[in-house]
């Protein structure tokens, strides 16, 4: 969440005063291109520096490709096999996204129930925490058996279970951690529990929910690839990586890993965009000049 901290620091005292005078639109100002460049330039430099050092050291010490492939070899394979690895990437992403949607939906339903019924919360949450301690990837062979090795749903099920817990735990916490004064206000207005959930708890839980989605978006790809290692169709990233590594084609394996990480970043950024769109009012997105 470092990008949020940056934004908070950038809000200067003059912005605060300007906003009192009412000349700042509620949605906040857009950053200018020059600012964006200045902000992301250090990250770009760091990224390039790592690649250069990596390339330099592997060349200097003559590191074999099967130990650590050179960035140049990886990029070469990345462009030569692009059709293959992006195709595999899309199928893996389909499993990851499917599992993400299923897991998140179940998690939100559980959270709403837990926020609404004290009994449910006391009964089910401890159980959920115990189950969460189970190494979930270990379930993959079992799900393969249940849903069929070639059925993408067996991978989605692993992803869904992995995604479920962080989203459920965080969302439940967000729904329950509400300012007591807000609850008192709603009580004074004789608001029903469902009104309180709709008008206070859900908006208050959104920041927790999105934090967990950001974690879950990355986890979902990890889980999908690990689930693929346990067998199934060959045209997916996990199996491709295993196969290329067995053939000692390590630059190919690395290129597939690069696809996986690009997909992970894109997934993460989509969540970030949805977050900004759904809660423009949140403190982390307020005016930064």
């Amino acid at each position, binding site marked *: 969440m470092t990008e949020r901290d940056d934004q908070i620091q950038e809000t200067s005292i003059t912005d605060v005063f300007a*906003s*009192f005078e*009412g000349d*700042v639109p*509620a949605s906040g100002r857009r950053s200018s291109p020059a600012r964006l460049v200045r902000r992301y330039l250090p990250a770009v430099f760091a990224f390039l520096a790592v690649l250069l050092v990596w390339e330099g050291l592997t060349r200097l010490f003559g590191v074999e490709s099967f130990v650590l492939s050179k960035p140049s070899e990886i990029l070469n394979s990345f462009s030569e096999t692009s059709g293959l690895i992006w195709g595999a990437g899309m199928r893996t992403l389909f499993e990851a996204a499917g599992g993400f949607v299923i897991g998140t939906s179940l998690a939100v339903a559980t959270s709403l129930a837990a926020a609404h019924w004290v009994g449910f919360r006391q009964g089910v949450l401890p159980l959920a925490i115990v189950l969460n301690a189970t190494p979930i990837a270990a379930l993959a062979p079992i799900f393969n058996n249940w849903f069929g090795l070639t059925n993408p749903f067996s991978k989605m099920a692993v992803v869904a279970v992995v995604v479920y817990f962080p989203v459920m735990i965080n969302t439940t916490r967000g729904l329950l951690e509400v*300012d007591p*004064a*807000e609850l*008192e*206000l*709603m*009580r*004074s*207005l*004789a*608001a029903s529990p469902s*009104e309180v959930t709709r*008008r*206070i708890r859900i*908006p208050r839980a959104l920041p927790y929910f999105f934090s967990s989605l950001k974690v879950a978006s990355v986890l979902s790809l990890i889980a999908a690839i690990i689930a693929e290692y346990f067998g199934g169709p060959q045209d997916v990233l996990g199996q491709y990586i295993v196969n290329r590594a067995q053939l000692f084609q390590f630059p190919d394996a690395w290129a597939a890993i690069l696809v996986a990480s690009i997909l992970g970043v894109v997934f993460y950024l989509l969540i970030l965009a949805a977050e900004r769109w759904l*809660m423009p*009012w*949140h*403190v982390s997105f*307020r005016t930064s000049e």
Partner: protein
Amino acid sequence: MSAPVVEARGLGKVFGTGEAETEALRGIDLEIAEGDFVSLIGPSGCGKSTLLRLIGDLVSPTTGTLVVNGKEPRQSRLDRDYGIVFQSATLLDWRSVQKNVELPLEIMDFPDAERPTRAREMLDLVQLAGFADHHPWQLSGGMQQRVAIARALAFRPALLLMDEPFGALDEMTREAMQQEVLRVWGETGTSVVFVTHSIPEAVFLSTRVVVMSPRPGRISDEIMVDLPPKRDLDTREDPRYFELVIEVREALRRGESGSSGS
């Protein structure tokens, strides 16, 4: 004279049980007439906020009887007989100023067409008409508290409960807000129960000051404020105003020394 808006007889409140038991209020007799502006003043722990919360049915009494607007406090709350303003404005960040004022109207199922009109009227009343589309965080503390007042009055309750509403504001803003509340009170005719620990604030605002003392919380004195109804900067320099401030201060001191200690 019509029936009182608030009528308490022998009201008591005990929090906790056994070792942790605390007697917050004992033997409270209080009557608030329609149109009154009553301040509850006293040191911390005197139960003034608890008394306000009892009236609002945010906590329930342990002993005694309490009638609000001619009903059980619970029924009165369910009928939305009162609006409440807390020390923090408690505005919802994700709603514009206008939508914050509309919140009670939404909960009470006011017709869609009526809500914005009402909200705008209320924002006019607290002189924030130009800020309807702002978000709470873009307002100063005093402005936020004015939005909270507009929200509390949006459904025209018979009673306005205010729990140290200006406690977090600086002195200048505070005085401006006091003037504002008096104006709103004059225009709406709502009865007000106002919790404060500021003596000048209590005297300046009220028709009656109820002095409370701690351990256990009880009413130790009641002082009628016989200042002219129209109050402004001159009131703060009126000799009678100073006399009343001294009177309340002495009543507070008597209440403090009269309490059992412990």
